[in-house]
């Protein structure tokens, strides 16, 4: 049972308006049967300091990743996780988080791997909700566990692996990291600790569009026109392109994936979650050092 869509005029500009709700809409719809609100933050303690009433927490680190292999949870793990948080297969899931919905977009992308149909982002996320003085609480939500079926995780349509990237050369790649990481000067965002990649730089031919450029100063998504100017104007994407986005571990690029797929309507967008931590450590893959994209090698 799907909860009604947010008819906000801003959203109707986007390719898939059904993927966003506004803070006003959410405030009016809290408690609606069939709606589950999820908070997913970069700081894993932030939810505990106060969250939207009734919202459940999804911890990107402990809830969505396999604890042993470098992979996401599988069918059984996702079913157990979602069920425990009161999410059914037909729930409308609205996800929000800190830092321009960075990790919220990551959670949404993982829900999409499992084909969860109705999953939306709160435009502006946690920051906008709080800036507007809306209610937050530290009370734990009253959870009724749900029965979520074990569904196959379908990686192919929206997830790229290293081999897919090597075969993709000649088609557009978007590197959503900071300019310093893109050039190879740094291995992590400025002000973050350096992460262990053995080489710095970027995948040849990738355009550099730092992910946060898609967000306005109030953490909402920029307008369709502004996004078109960035991704089509500056980065040179054209309608119908098959695009792969990547960052360091695939979280920032989930945000760009959302923008390209749901706001700008690119049908074939994949997120390479192996990203720089894999590519910068892999043996015999091509790398470009410096701020120029460089030529795409022959696909292999």
């Amino acid at each position, binding site marked *: 049972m799907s909860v009604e869509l947010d008819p906000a005029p801003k959203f109707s500009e986007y390719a898939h308006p059904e993927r966003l709700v506004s803070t006003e809409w959410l405030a009016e719809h809290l408690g609606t049967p069939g709606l589950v609100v999820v908070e997913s933050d*970069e*700081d*894993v*303690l*932030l939810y*505990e*300091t106060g969250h939207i009433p009734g919202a459940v927490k999804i911890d990107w*680190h*402990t809830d969505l990743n396999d*604890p042993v292999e470098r992979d996401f949870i599988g069918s059984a793990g996702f079913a157990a996780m979602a069920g425990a948080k009161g999410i059914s297969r037909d729930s409308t899931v609205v996800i929000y988080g*800190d830092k321009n919905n960075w990790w919220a977009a990551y959670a949404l992308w993982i829900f999409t791997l499992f084909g969860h149909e109705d999953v939306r982002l709160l435009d502006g996320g946690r920051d906008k909700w709080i800036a507007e003085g809306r209610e937050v609480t530290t009370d734990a939500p009253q959870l009724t566990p749900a029965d979520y079926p074990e569904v196959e995780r379908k990686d192919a349509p929206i997830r790229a692996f290293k081999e897919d990237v090597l075969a993709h050369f000649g088609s557009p790649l978007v590197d959503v990291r900071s300019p310093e990481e893109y050039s190879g000067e740094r291995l992590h965002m400025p*002000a*973050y*600790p350096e*992460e262990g990649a053995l080489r710095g730089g970027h995948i040849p031919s990738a355009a550099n569009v730092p992910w946060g450029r898609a967000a306005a100063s109030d953490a909402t998504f920029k307008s369709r026109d502004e996004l078109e100017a960035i991704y089509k104007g500056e980065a040179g994407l054209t309608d119908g392109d098959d695009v792969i986005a990547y960052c360091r571990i695939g979280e920032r690029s989930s945000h760009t994936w959302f923008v390209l797929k749901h706001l700008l309507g690119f049908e074939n967008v994949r997120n390479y979650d192996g990203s720089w931590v894999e590519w910068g450590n892999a043996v015999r893959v091509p790398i470009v050092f410096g701020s120029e994209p460089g030529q795409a090698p022959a696909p292999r």
Partner: protein
Amino acid sequence: MEVMTSSTVPAALAEIRDDFLALPQKERLTLLLEFSNELPELPERYQEHPDLFERVVECQSPVYIFVEIDDDDSVHLYATAPRESPTTRGFASILAQGLDGLSVDEVLAIPDDYPQSIGLTEAVSPLRIRGMTALLARTKRQIRARRGDAASAG
């Protein structure tokens, strides 16, 4: 005779570590949140002196620290971190409480891998734990620098 540089976990930090390890994973986060809420406000004499504070750039949010050494050689760590970064505040609070009043030598002897020993690497990502390691390293560096100054001045 034992070499003086051997690492020893001071009693207060050992107690904090044992408190964390005694809890199941989820409750460790709750305890970290308690520490986060307990991070003391700066004493009045430092509130107007942001110039004294050093940014811990390895942390994912703006954290600033200042180490004070009393005339009797005891150490006090002061830290500021935003409310929106409870994890980082928690780390700073553990160190501020755990090393308060220790001697310079006792602080320098804290094992550098103390942050890895308190049972948070599962609940909080290893990357974030590195921020706490940097907090400890910068604290020690400030102490060494200040002690060096005092020695050369004397």
